[in-house]
């Protein structure tokens, strides 16, 4: 079965992204396909490369990156939601004249069209943190 996950909550403050990560791992382990993970609303903070967790705590953005690299996943951060919340890639940082960029390289900034396209391509769309 083909899945798409929508993550709407930020790491650390909410359990939802961690639950989404576990769900993603479980469905991949069972042989399903993960078409896309779409990070929306405060979920865009999952894409921040500046998240710095204490050693004995997990770092969600790094775990998303590791999972994406292992399974060649498409992990997309909503561009409109991200810019408002200060999650920028190099192109957007330049466009908005910010000093630095912080989107993890494993993530891609793109529009809500990617959410709709993913919904059309998937058998199941599961929302976390909505």
């Amino acid at each position, binding site marked *: 079965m083909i899945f798409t996950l*929508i993550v*709407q909550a930020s790491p650390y403050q909410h359990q939802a992204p961690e639950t989404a990560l576990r769900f993603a791992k479980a469905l991949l382990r069972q042989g399903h396909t993960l078409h896309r993970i779409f990070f*929306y*609303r405060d979920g865009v903070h999952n894409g921040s490369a500046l998240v710095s967790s204490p050693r004995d705590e997990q770092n969600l953005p790094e775990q998303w990156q590791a999972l994406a690299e292992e399974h060649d996943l498409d992990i997309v951060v909503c561009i*409109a*939601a991200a810019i408002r919340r200060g999650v920028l890639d190099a192109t957007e940082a330049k466009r908005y004249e910010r000093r630095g960029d912080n989107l993890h390289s494993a993530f891609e900034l793109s*529009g*809500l*069209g990617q*959410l*709709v*396209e993913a*919904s*059309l391509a998937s058998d199941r*769309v599961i*929302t976390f943190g*909505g």
Partner: protein
Amino acid sequence: MSINKRFLLISRSAPYGTSAAREMLDIALTCSVFEQPVTLLLLGDAVLQLIRDHRPDEVSQKNLNALQASLAMYDIDRILIPETALQKHGLSTDQLSIPIELINAEQLPALIAEHDIVITI
């Protein structure tokens, strides 16, 4: 895009206190741009999103009424509210900014079942 899926967007949030109302509308309009049919279901406090003549500028927010009024132009004309949500807030349909369809709680399971994609926000 040729594939059609019926989208149901469910909100439970009042406007302006959080970004939920605005960000739900952004999804709805995007679905419409992709020519996918969208139904909006406003539960609980979300009914407050449709009260007429918001003045959110007083709390430094953009007014959602204009965006809501444009939904019909995007062929988003199925906006559902449970009768109990209206009653709970002491509202009647003529106090709302756009036409809605009243439903009752017993209809919710069938409503959700008839949609392909259900997104809560």
